């Protein structure tokens, strides 16, 4: 495992929110944080709520902006620094390298779930038919009933939306996956499916960083844990 190349190398990362609309209050969340994740490895982030676990995932995805340090990810064979990458590079990194499952699905009005899941493949140049077939097989594996495939997920239950989210993040087999509570709204059977999907992903060499509150899920998927250190808040 130690011979596997580093897929993510976070170096001396700082994240502070400055709330200008609230008198410029500063909220430090991460300070001088470093860790690496290798290919084929699943790392579980741990720590009390508010420690900055979700913030760290969002920083790696480029959804939040770092105040200092570097976030290197292996993209097309070279390391790209997410903290300083141009938006154009970030779009390419997200299309081909970084998959992210958030806790909530941002619903696009009127787009059927199978199209949502097939879209990442189509954007990478897969033919529409082949992309839909692949999307269908992932939805099937996640036990999303076929009658829901042609419906926009706006009216779906939390668990159904979460499975659409997981399906669209996993369908294109990206080399790095960031998972924020992927099993939070799922029943035991579907939790087991997601566990097996995560294991398949690491077996094909994907590097995974996740937040798994469920202890059994964490034990089943994580190769190791990384405790996100709590930053002392200035009064």
């Amino acid at each position: 495992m130690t011979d596997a190349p580093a897929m993510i190398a976070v170096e001396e990362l700082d994240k502070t929110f400055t709330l200008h609309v609230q008198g410029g209050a500063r909220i430090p969340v991460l300070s001088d944080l470093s860790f690496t994740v290798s290919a084929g490895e699943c790392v579980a982030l741990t720590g009390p709520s508010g420690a900055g676990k979700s913030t760290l995932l969002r920083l790696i995805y480029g959804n939040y902006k770092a105040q200092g340090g570097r976030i290197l990810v292996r993209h097309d064979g070279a390391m790209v620094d997410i903290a300083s990458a141009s938006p154009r590079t970030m779009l390419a990194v997200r299309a081909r390298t970084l998959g992210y499952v958030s806790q909530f699905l941002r619903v696009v009005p009127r787009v059927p779930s199978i199209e949502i899941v097939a879209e990442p493949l189509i954007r990478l140049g897969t033919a529409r038919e082949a992309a839909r077939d692949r999307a269908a097989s992932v939805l099937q594996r996640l036990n999303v009933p076929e009658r829901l495939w042609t419906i926009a997920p706006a009216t779906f239950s939390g668990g159904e939306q979460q499975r659409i989210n997981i399906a669209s993040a996993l369908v294109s087999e990206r080399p790095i996956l960031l998972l924020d509570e992927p099993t939070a709204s799922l029943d035991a059977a579907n939790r087991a499916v997601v566990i097996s999907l995560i294991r398949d992903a690491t077996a094909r060499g994907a590097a995974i960083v996740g937040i798994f509150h469920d202890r059994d899920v964490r034990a089943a998927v994580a190769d190791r844990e990384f405790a996100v250190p709590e930053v002392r808040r200035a009064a």
Partner: protein
Amino acid sequence: MRTPEAARVDPSPATETDPPLLTADGVTRWYGHRLGCRDVAFMLWPGEVLGIVGESGSGKTTLLDCLSGRLSPTAGHVVYRGEDGDAVDIFALPESRRRLLQRTEWGIVRQNPRDGLRMGVSAGANIGERLMAAGWRHYGDIRGSADEWLQRVEIDGDRIDDRPVTFSGGMQQRLQIARNLVTRPRLVFMDEPTGGLDVSVQARLLDLLRGLVAEFGLAAVIVTHDLAVVRLLAHRLMVMQGGAVVESGLTDQVLDDPQHPYTQLLVSSVLQA
């Protein structure tokens, strides 16, 4: 603690080095002593959608008019790389060439469809006119293409001979989009495309635009004050205040972790539905 990879950070991966479609450099527009927009610079690549947000009077529409060749900037350049591969400063072109670009390789969707449509002629003629400007001559082909585009924008084919004055606001806006996209432009400028429409009509239009942008690999510049519109359509975002760009970046990053005080105010002022 640096990793061995630290020395090999690649700032611009080889696949991202193709030339931009549109380059704005120092674009500034004064109206006498009043500032329209100041020193705006960005590059747009094929297939990218750039959103421009800001309150009324922030200079968004002035900037869009400069970018689309309808208003000369007081200073700065707008360079467009045409279908022929040549990069041209659009304000160095003769007026006739600029107009040809606007009618063929570009589309311009106005907030008020009455400004972008010819209200006195039929829906079919509104679409056909763009094709004729692009050199189409065969009546049957033109009518066939107009009919196909009406369907694409979800307007019933039997309305082809009706004038747009008989259409609802949402239908007029969809017709304006069909008129602009029928010549398969490479770059589309949109000024508040969903402004003035009911929320349900907006959702339908947004979904339609999103599909067309993805299907044709369109590049687009969309000016709006509606953050939900840019979240859905735009890959990248520029935030304008007082004529200047105060923040720019990936759309979701700017909206979810705004850095500038004005952007934070803008994002926090949105009512949650």
